[in-house]
């Protein structure tokens, strides 16, 4: 398919991500930081986010599996995850983390397990979406086009 069409599809897709709340304005900021001196900035950050989050989720699962759950450690991990997701603009993951943290404070094991599931779910969703979006971008670049800037009026 031709570049213009691909670009339009990318724009629509990205817009939908914003509309559905997967991403927020912070992601736009990241995109703005990408320039000639830093052409793969977004990809790098997103990849780093994926790696970091996988590790954190594994740690969380292990921590909550223990007979005596160390809520402090759990809280620390969730805090990290929240920080990463908010830095990248993964809004729903961030919100889920916030809820997770409040339950950690209450030391409610069942609720925290549920939250962990929620966070994982949101994470995989957004990971999927971002990977699709990045693939689209790669295709456009490979076809010789340039990635259109999303301008949104909030």
């Amino acid at each position, binding site marked *: 398919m031709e570049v213009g069409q691909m670009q339009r599809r990318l724009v629509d897709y990205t817009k939908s991500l914003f509309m559905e709340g997967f991403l927020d304005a*912070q992601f736009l*900021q990241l995109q*703005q930081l990408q320039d000639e001196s830093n052409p793969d900035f977004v990809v790098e950050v997103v990849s780093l986010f994926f790696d970091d989050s996988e590790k954190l989720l594994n740690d969380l699962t292990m921590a909550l599996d223990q007979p005596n759950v160390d809520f402090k450690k759990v*809280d*620390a991990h969730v805090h990290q995850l929240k920080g*990463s997701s*908010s*830095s990248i603009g993964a809004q729903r993951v961030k919100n889920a983390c916030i809820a997770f943290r409040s339950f950690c404070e209450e030391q409610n094991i069942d609720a925290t397990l549920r939250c962990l599931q929620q966070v994982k779910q949101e994470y995989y969703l957004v990971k999927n979406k971002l990977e699709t979006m990045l693939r689209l971008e790669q295709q456009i670049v490979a076809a010789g086009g340039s990635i259109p800037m999303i301008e949104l009026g909030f």
Partner: protein
Amino acid sequence: MESCNCIEPQWPPDDLLMKYQYISDFFIALAYFSIPLELIYFVKKSAVFPYRWVLVQFGAFIVLCGATHLINLWTFTVHSRTVASVMTTAKVLTAAVSCITALMLVHIIPDLLSVKTRELFLKNKAAELDREMGLIRTQEETGRHVRMLTHEIRSTLDRHTILKTTLVELGRTLALEECALWMPTRTGLELQLSYTLRQQNPVGYTVPIHHPVINQVFSSNRAVKISPNCPVARLRPAGKYMPGEVVAVRVPLLHLSNFHINDWPELSTKRYALMVLMLPSDSARQWHVHELELVEVVADQVAVALSHAAILEESMRARDLLMEQNVALDLARREAETAIRARNDFLAVMNHEMRTPMHAIIALSSLLQETELTPEQRLMVETILKSSNLLATLINDVLDLSGLEDGSLQLDLGTFNLYAVFREVLNLIKPIASVKKLHVSLTLAPDLPEYAIGDEKRLMQTILNIVGNAVKFSKEGSISITAFVAKLDTLRDSKAPEFLPVLSDNHFYLRVQVKDSGSGINPLDIPKLFTKFAQNQSTGTRNSGGSGLGLAICKRFVNLMEGHIWIESEGLGKGCTAILIVKLGMAERVNESKLPYMPKMPTNHGQTAIAGLKVLVMDENGVSRMVTKGLLLHLGCDVTMVGSSDECLRLVSHEHKVVFMDICVPGIDSYGITIRIHEKFTKRHERPLLVALTGNTDKVKKENCMRAGMDGLILKPVSLDKMRSVLTDLLEHRVFFEAI
């Protein structure tokens, strides 16, 4: 006959006469011998006999006489010549001594007599002294009475108690039958019986004040004896016997205003009360001088005590009144404070709440203007923009005025181009004026400086407001704006007595006159113009949609600029002139290159500061660290990344100008790092600026940051523009704390 040497007495010894002589001689001798003994004995006993040697003489004389008479006893019978010769010797001696004694006595007896007269004299003196002692004692007793009375009188400050006590004590001291006090009535024409000693309830007897006796008493400050038949003294039922003597004395009633110490004795237009004292009838007692003196002294004391009581009453009343007023004032103050606090709270909230949506509307409308629009859409957007600008201005005005009232508003002083201000005003007003077909002319005096120091924005606002009013309220004609430097004589205006211009070398007074040919104002309404919210209701032509705040705000601004603003009009239909005088600072000849002295920096200045800036970023979270790094790299900084506090401390050097720290991560003691960095770099210019970067925070955290020694605080998420402006601000002011 034997021829003996005896001498025969002439008479026979048995003759009766001779016997009696014999016995008398014997007794004489006895007496003569015992007298000296007695004398010696008694003189020895007494200590004060001065003439001892006279005694000796006397003694000798008497002893010799005794001896003579004793020897004489032997001459009654036949005695020898020896006896006769002894007798003769004795007699001779006696004669000698007695002659000497006689001679001596001539001297001594007058002395003895004078002793006697002296004794008499001393006795008289003693009697006199006794009398005087008696007098003094009496006086002292009187004094004691007075003191006691005074003490009694002065031990209370209650008027009635004072007077009653006086009468009681006087009655007791002087043993009076009756004691009464007559006070002048309010009209001053009569004396009313107010207090008596014996009668419990004095009925309101009144006596006219202009009685000769009363006048006599009032005219002297001594106690005066009056006749018992005087109306003031007729207090008792007429007794059968002689009524006792009556004395009356005046009691000055002193008022506060009469306390002139210098003319104390000359109490001229004073009111007096009359105190009447009656001795018991049938007692034949007389008034003694010391008693009268006592009465006078007491009267004076009473006067003073009464005045004190009056003063005290007055001051107690005043104090109670003050206390009441105090309480009321306190209440009012508290209410006012509550009201002010409520208003401030309201304003604080509305300030933010109102401005935010306004800014959003304005910003987005202006952004919208940049996009592609159809002409109709463009018109609509422009209208939205204009209306929202107006609304924003109105909100700002209201909030400004409240800020002005708090006194919290300060002028933004800066150097600006005065001519440009006027040109701008003209440009803004020209469109409206041309629509209304009004001719606007601007005249700037040649000696008006081109540049001045002052608050440009507010000055323009004020001038614009006045010119705008002129245009608004003129249907036709012309508007003329003149501006010149005010000289001293034009400065003083009779309408502004409190406006005291002070000329100095660094300042000048700008005078702006805006004259319009519009509908004018009734001169009586002029004072109301500058009161906020007071609309001029009288003229129907005023369809101004303004809230009436404009002129009030202008007045406030002008006052802040130490100036004065007023409006003159000759009446309705005759147009009016608004005159404005403000104090501006003189600017030196500025050329364009000096203009960057102004507080706001042009943006490229900031850009050059950031480019190449060496910064250190500390963040445990890999993703957010990368994002921050990307941000800073995009801005052109030289970024070093660290992931822990130890690394941070290790790598930080004086080359790094700024250190960004994420402080919301549990486990990182950012305050500790701050303190250690402070210790590492003791010189302030070597130390990098420490900025906390955090996603969530509250006022407490902010205060902790400030206290720990951080130079700044930024909230995440940080946009590109925000980071740029923050860095610029930070580098310029060396401190940046975002408002929480």
